[in-house]
C-alpha cells in the first residue's frame, strides 16, 4: 500500500510540474506585453511595471521565480486588478465555486448510483428503460442548454425557484440541477453496466447458493465490486464539473472563480490566468490522487500487486 501511495504521489508531482511548465511557456509564447494597450503609460512606467512583474529578467530566471512562487502557493499580483493579488481573488471566488462543485458531485454520485443500481436490478424492465432513457438524455443535453431551460421553466414561467445568484439553499437548486445532470447520467450508466456485469459473476452465484438474502447479496457482494469503476472515473467527472462551473456561473450570475477566469483570458491578465490554471490543475490532480488512494483502500488486491494502469 505504501509503495502504491508513493507511486501515485510521484505521478501527481510530475503532472503538476508539467502543468506549471506548460502554462508558463505557453503564456510567454504569446506576442506582446500585457501593458502595451494601457493608456497613458510611458516607457519609464512600462519598464517599472515590467520590473515589478519580473518581466525584464531572462526567461529562465522568470521560470524559477515562477516555480518558487507556486511552490509556496503564492500566485502573485493580478495585472488588471492591481489592488488585489491572485490569491485574494482565488480566496473570494474559489469557495463559492468549490461549494457549487461539491454539492453537485454529491448529488450526482448519490442519485447516479441509486438510479444505476435500480436499473440493473430491474434489468430490461420498465424502470431500467426509464432510467436509461433519462441517462442518455442527461448525457446529450449540454449543461448550458439545460440551465437556460431550467431558468425558463422553473424560474420565469412557473416562478418556483429564484433564477440567479448563490445566496440561499433555494438559490442553489437550479444551478446544481443543471450541473449535476450530466455527471449523474454518466454515473448511472456506468453503475448499471458494471452492476450487470458483477451480477453475472461466479461469486454472486456462490452467494446465492449460500442462501443469502437478496439485499445482502446486492449490498455486500455486488455493490462494492460494482462501484470500483465508478470510483475510477470520479476524478475525470470532477474535472468536468469544475470546468462546468464556469458556464453555470456565467448563466446564473454566481460570483465564483469562473467569471475572473474568463475575464482574465479576455484581458490577457497573465498572472491571473497562470494562477487560476495552475491552482485549478493542482486541485484536480490532488483530487485524482485522493481518488486513487480511495481505490486502493477499497480494493484489497492493490495492496500486494502493483496496479496495472488499466
Amino acid at each position, binding site marked *: 500500500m505504501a509503495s502504491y501511495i508513493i507511486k501515485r504521489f510521484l505521478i501527481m508531482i510530475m503532472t503538476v510540474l508539467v502543468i506549471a511548465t506548460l502554462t508558463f511557456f505557453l503564456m510567454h509564447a504569446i506576442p506582446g506585453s500585457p501593458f502595451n494597450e494601457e493608456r497613458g503609460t510611458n516607457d519609464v512606467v512600462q519598464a517599472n511595471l515590467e520590473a515589478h512583474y519580473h518581466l525584464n529578467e531572462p526567461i529562465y530566471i522568470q521560470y524559477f521565480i515562477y516555480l518558487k512562487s507556486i511552490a509556496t502557493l503564492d500566485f502573485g499580483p493580478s495585472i488588471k486588478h492591481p489592488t488585489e493579488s491572485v490569491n485574494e481573488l482565488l480566496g473570494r471566488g474559489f469557495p463559492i465555486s468549490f461549494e457549487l462543485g461539491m454539492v453537485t458531485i454529491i448529488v450526482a454520485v448519490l442519485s447516479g448510483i441509486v438510479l444505476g443500481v435500480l436499473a440493473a436490478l430491474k434489468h430490461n424492465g420498465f424502470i431500467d428503460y426509464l432510467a436509461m432513457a433519462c441517462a442518455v438524455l442527461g448525457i446529450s443535453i449540454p449543461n448550458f442548454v439545460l440551465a437556460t431551460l431550467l431558468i425558463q421553466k422553473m424560474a420565469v414561467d412557473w416562478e418556483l425557484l429564484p433564477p440567479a445568484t448563490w445566496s440561499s439553499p433555494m438559490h442553489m437548486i437550479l444551478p446544481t440541477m443543471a450541473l449535476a445532470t450530466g455527471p449523474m447520467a454518466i454515473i448511472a450508466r456506468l453503475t448499471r453496466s458494471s452492476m450487470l456485469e458483477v451480477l453475472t459473476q461466479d461469486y454472486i452465484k456462490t452467494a446465492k447458493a*449460500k*442462501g443469502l438474502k437478496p439485499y445482502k447479496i446486492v449490498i455486500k457482494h455486488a455493490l462494492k*465490486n460494482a462501484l470500483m469503476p465508478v470510483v475510477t472515473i470520479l476524478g475525470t467527472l470532477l474535472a468536468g464539473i469544475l470546468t462546468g462551473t464556469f458556464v453555470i456561473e456565467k448563466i446564473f450570475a454566481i460570483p465564483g472563480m469562473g467569471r475572473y477566469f474568463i475575464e482574465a483570458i479576455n484581458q490577457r491578465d497573465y498572472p491571473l490566468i497562470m494562477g487560476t490554471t495552475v491552482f485549478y490543475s493542482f486541485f484536480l490532480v490532488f483530487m485524482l490522487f485522493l481518488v486513487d488512494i480511495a481505490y486502493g483502500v477499497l480494493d*484489497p488486491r492493490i495492496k*500486494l*500487486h502493483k496496479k496495472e494502469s488499466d
Partner: protein
Amino acid sequence: MEKLLQVKDLHVSFVTYGGEVQAVRGVSFDLHKGETLAIVGESGCGKSVTANSIMKLIPSPPGKITAGKIIYNGQELVTKEEKEMRHIRGVDISMIFQDPMTALNPTLTIGEQLTEGLRQHQQISRQAANQQAMDILDLVGIPNPKERLRQYPHQFSGGMRQRIVIAMALICEPELLIADEPTTALDVTIQAQILELFEKIQKETGIAIILITHDLGVVAKIADRIAVMYAGKIIEVGDKREIFYHASHPYTKGLLLSVPRLDRPEEKLIPIDGTPPDLFSPPVGCPFTARCPQAMEVCEKVYPYQTALSDTHQVECWLQDEKARKPAVL
C-alpha cells in the same frame, strides 16, 4: 437405501433471441443418502443446467423449468417460492462451481465469506461462527486457519481457493453437495488432492455428492454411480462397474474409447466424430444418430424407450430392441 433426491422428467429451456433452447429434455434420476452420483457428458449436454436446476439457480429469464419434479427429502422444490428456497440453499443442499478463481468475492475476507451463510441460517455469534469456520478450514486442509480467515482470496493459490470454496459449501453441514466441474480449472496434481478431499469429507460427514464432470478419470476415482448425458437427456445410467466394463450405449462406449488408458498403452484413442445436435431444434429420434456408428433408420425417427439391463443399469437405445438384434444375427 433411503432416497435423498428424486428428479423426475425435468425439462429446462432458455429463451434467447434466436429461439428456445431446450437444454434439458426429460431428465430423471434418483440419489441415495451418502452416495456419489456422477453426471458426465460433453460441454453443452445440459449437465450443469440440471445441477443448477436442483438449486433453482437457473437465471430466469431467460431460463425456465418447463416441466418435471425435483423432490428433496419429500419436499417438492420446483414449485417452491424463492424465499423458501433460501432456507434450503447452503443449509440442505450446497453447490460449488467450476472456477475457484472467480467463485470468491475479491473484496471480502475469507472469514467473512465463510461465516456469512452460517450467521444467516443459524443465529450464532460472530465468535462461534469464526470458531466453526476455523474447524471447517482445518477439515479441508488449510493450515493456520486463524490467520487465514483475515486474508483475501487473491492471497491464496487456485487449489487453496477451491478448498475454501468447498469449506464454504460444507459449513452449514448440508446433506447434499453439488459439485459442478470442481476440478476442471485446476492443475492435475491439485485435482488429485481435491478428489481425495471429497472422499475424506464423504467418509467423515456422510454427505451425498452430485458430481458434474466431463472427465472420466475423475469419475473413475470417486463416483458410485454414473449417469451419461447427451443432448439434454440421460442416455445411460448405471453403477461405476457397469458403465466402465459393460457400457451398452454407443455414445458411452465412444466416450470410454476416447479416454487414454495407462494400463493399455497399445490401444489407439478413438475420437467420436461429429458434433452434438443443435438444441434450438432437437431431433425427434435419438440425438446421437448422426454420430452413431451403429445407427439405424428407426433411431432417426423415434426416440428409444428405456431398457433396464439390471436393477441399477438402464439405457435408452434401439440396439437393445429385439428387432435390432435379428438382422445382426443374420
